[in-house]
């Protein structure tokens, strides 16, 4: 059980929630969030957007029942956090490209911060449907930020010289972005989403087919090498 410090709207349907939690979480990991008893049945997977001392920051889009409940929470309310879960990112890169689409931009904030502290040079491409958010946060760490509203962010990618590329967003966008780097030397990572029941590897609900057989997004992922998941 954790206490909510702040929960405010930052763009249309997009909320930022600061939660008191001192976990040692890695960029790319997520938590299973729950602010109700038995209904809805499942907890909701939300990525770590950022960390700030003893606080974890989540940025989420209101989609359905669960995220609607999250959006109604006030500071001082409790929320259950199960996590951090998942593998998270490796941070060895020197020259990186981050590509985010929609609320998939959220986890890139903490990733950019971590990469920067490892001395990496960062270019970020951020694609939005209606309204930009978190651009300033990412600009604090990225050397170059390209944003687009309403178009396809993959149309604006011009930096192909990178040793690592991190993509998070809708699956079609991730696939398209991967195609751009497929024949370069860059290592490309995609953060995958699947519906989850347990979030801890116990139900096989979040299965993803990879080049190396079935994997679980919740525990083998959510970060995968793009070549392993977009191989067909």
């Amino acid at each position, binding site marked *: 059980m954790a206490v909510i410090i702040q929960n405010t709207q930052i763009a249309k349907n997009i909320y930022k929630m600061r939660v008191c939690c001192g976990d040692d979480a890695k960029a790319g990991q997520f938590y299973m969030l729950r602010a109700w008893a*038995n*209904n*809805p*049945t*499942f*907890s909701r997977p939300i990525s770590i957007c950022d960390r700030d001392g003893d606080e974890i920051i989540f940025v989420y889009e209101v989609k359905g029942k669960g995220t609607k409940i999250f959006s109604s929470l006030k500071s001082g309310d409790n929320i259950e956090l*199960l996590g951090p879960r998942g593998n998270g990112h490796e941070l060895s890169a020197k020259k990186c490209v981050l590509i985010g689409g929609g609320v998939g931009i959220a986890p890139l904030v903490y990733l950019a911060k971590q990469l920067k502290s490892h001395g990496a040079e960062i270019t970020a491409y951020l694609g939005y449907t209606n309204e930009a958010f978190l651009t300033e946060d990412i600009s604090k760490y990225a050397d170059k930020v390209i944003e687009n509203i309403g178009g396809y962010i993959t149309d604006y990618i011009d930096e192909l010289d990178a040793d690592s590329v991190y993509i998070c967003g809708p699956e079609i966008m991730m696939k398209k972005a991967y195609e751009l780097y497929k024949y370069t030397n860059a290592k490309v990572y995609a953060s995958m989403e699947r*519906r*989850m*029941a*347990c979030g*801890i*590897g*116990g*139900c*096989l*609900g*979040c*299965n993803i*087919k990879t080049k190396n*057989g*079935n994997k679980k997004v919740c*525990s083998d992922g959510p970060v995968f090498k793009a070549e392993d998941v977009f191989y067909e």
Partner: protein
Amino acid sequence: MNRLSVDFLGINFKNPIVAASGTFSFGKEFAEFYDINMLGGISFKGLTLNKKEGNEGIRVWECESGMMNSIGLENPGVEEFVEKYTDYTQNIDTVKIVNMGGNNLQEYIKGAELLNKVDFDILELNISCPNVKSGGMLFGVCEESAYEVTKAVKNITRHKLMVKLTPNVTDIASIAKACEEAGADALSLVNTFQAMAIDVLHKKPIFDNIYAGLSGACIKPIALRMVHQTAKAVKIPVMGMGGIYTGTDVLEFLMAGASCVQVGTANFINPLALKNIIKELEAYCEKENINIKDIINII
């Protein structure tokens, strides 16, 4: 004194709480959250003779007070399980139940024979599997095929045999009796109810297989009725399940005639669910000054 201990098939269970097959994997994931050896037992992820990749598409879907799943029995296969048995069951010091299904009689027989190579407590036979030879009808939906598969496995296995019934039948008592006659040592029920969900936006079924298995609180009242009918129909012990979330739910199943229960979906709501249920039962027995076995089959 342990007020929660129960006897099931001559095996002493620390308490009547067993993790349900397919919801607890082989236990390792939950061991991160609490000492899983406090459980009465664990029914492992359902096995089939050959490794299965499971179903494509969406596999889990939430609904009011429950969920649907279409995992498709993804599992490593009996052979690998037997080969790496010590890895799978390492550090597990409670009643071990191996759950197995099959797509034809031969698969059940071969699987059960291979499982004779390893030691565990109970073989749970999942007969909610389509019989490929009879056009995909589930083994568990008619008396003849339920009898046949139970008898065939009973003949070959050296383990205690518990047959897991499907609730997708018109008369659960007659299927239960057929399994008892065929030599089942115990019965467990219910497996999931066949169900469906539709994506109205795209005008298509949510699941690639169209239908999926319903579990969780929404099935509890029906599951309880079926456990009651079964317990009244047979002399062999019954392990009840279906939508158990709390200690009170467990008490209902025990009073209805189950000697033990399995808990599945609740593990997804809270990985500590089974531990919490055991604590609730301890408090109940303390308060009522009874042993849990005193309330079994009193209704």
